[in-house]
């Protein structure tokens, strides 16, 4: 596990260096929002927050190494008469990965639409279930407003899907807002 994290981190770091040198434009950002379990009836809505970089590889393509913490809300379990039988804790996910963002990132627009497609490694934790580190995919869309060239205000919707050992998985809709700060030439 530690080895794979190191390899992944090294690849991200090299990608950052190479892309920054060649494209000359990169940014860092933070975001937070709500984590909605899409098809898990034993979990409630929770929170999601994280940090990311954005490296422009091509005018229409950026790469985003990211680190994301998501939490599920607890869920009250009730019988048909509405009697409370107990509360199931939601659990949480710690994720790091790389998203590709595809859209129009050239300088002429103050509003950018883009699509997101990514791969991530996820540590899934929940009461009474062994911790699992599993691969996930993310896909979504976002919109970014740039009141000034170096600052972006971003809103995005991302579906984060993780398969679990023994079958099944976690499918979450992450609705987040965030800020990006850009470095490098215009």
């Amino acid at each position, binding site marked *: 596990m530690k080895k794979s994290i190191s390899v992944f981190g090294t690849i991200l770091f090299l990608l950052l260096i190479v892309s920054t040198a060649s494209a000359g434009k990169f940014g860092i950002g933070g975001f937070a929002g709500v984590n909605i379990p*899409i*098809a*898990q*009836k*034993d*979990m409630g809505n929770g929170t999601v927050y994280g940090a990311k970089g954005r490296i422009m590889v091509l005018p229409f393509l950026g790469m985003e190494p990211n680190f994301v913490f998501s939490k599920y809300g607890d869920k009250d*379990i009730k*019988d*048909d008469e509405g009697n409370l*039988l*107990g*509360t*199931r804790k939601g659990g949480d996910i710690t994720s790091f990965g790389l998203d590709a963002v*595809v*859209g*129009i990132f050239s300088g002429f627009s103050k509003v950018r*639409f*883009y*699509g*997101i497609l990514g791969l991530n490694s996820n540590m899934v934790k929940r*009461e*009474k*279930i062994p911790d699992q580190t599993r691969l996930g*995919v993310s*896909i*979504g*869309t*976002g919109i970014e407003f740039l009141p000034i060239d170096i600052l972006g205000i971003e809103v995005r*919707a991302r*579906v984060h*899907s993780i398969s*679990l050992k*023994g*079958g*099944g*998985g976690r*499918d979450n*809709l992450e609705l987040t807002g965030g800020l990006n700060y850009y470095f490098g030439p215009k």
Partner: protein
Amino acid sequence: MNKEKRKYLGLLPLLLLILVCGCLLTSGTVVIILKVNNQDIHASQHFYKFIVNLENNEDWRNNKDKLNSIEDMVFTFKLANPGSDSITGQVYVSEDSTLSDTTAVKSQATLILDGITVPPHDTLYVNMEHYYDLLHNFDTLRDLVKGGIFTTYGIVPSPIEGGLFDAVVIVTVDAGL
């Protein structure tokens, strides 16, 4: 690219998201709640016993063929102690519904709850939170639940009719959509 075309290009990610949501979501969790009728809980001189038959539940029947895994399995119940001394108890589960005494249960069934203690002249409600504190052999229990039918044995020093009541079985399954 003219302005009109760019406007529509911006909608592509949204369309992609909608498309992929439909493709990625292949499974979900379902919570199945099965109440055990008090008249189905039998007290012998050795133990309480009841059969859990998930086939009696519509949600189970609808999802058993698409089952990926058992996420969770919980018993909640009430246990009365009319005596003047505290009692302690255990709960075992087995595919075998014919075990006839405490020795057979302890040797052939799987212990899942231990450390149940009821004060004298009191009734203990084991809810979900309390259940997790008492739980043992969770993986074995989850494997047993996949079969849909199993027998629960509750061992206390002197079982009495009606002493164990309001039992509810809560099973969370991950199944294909």
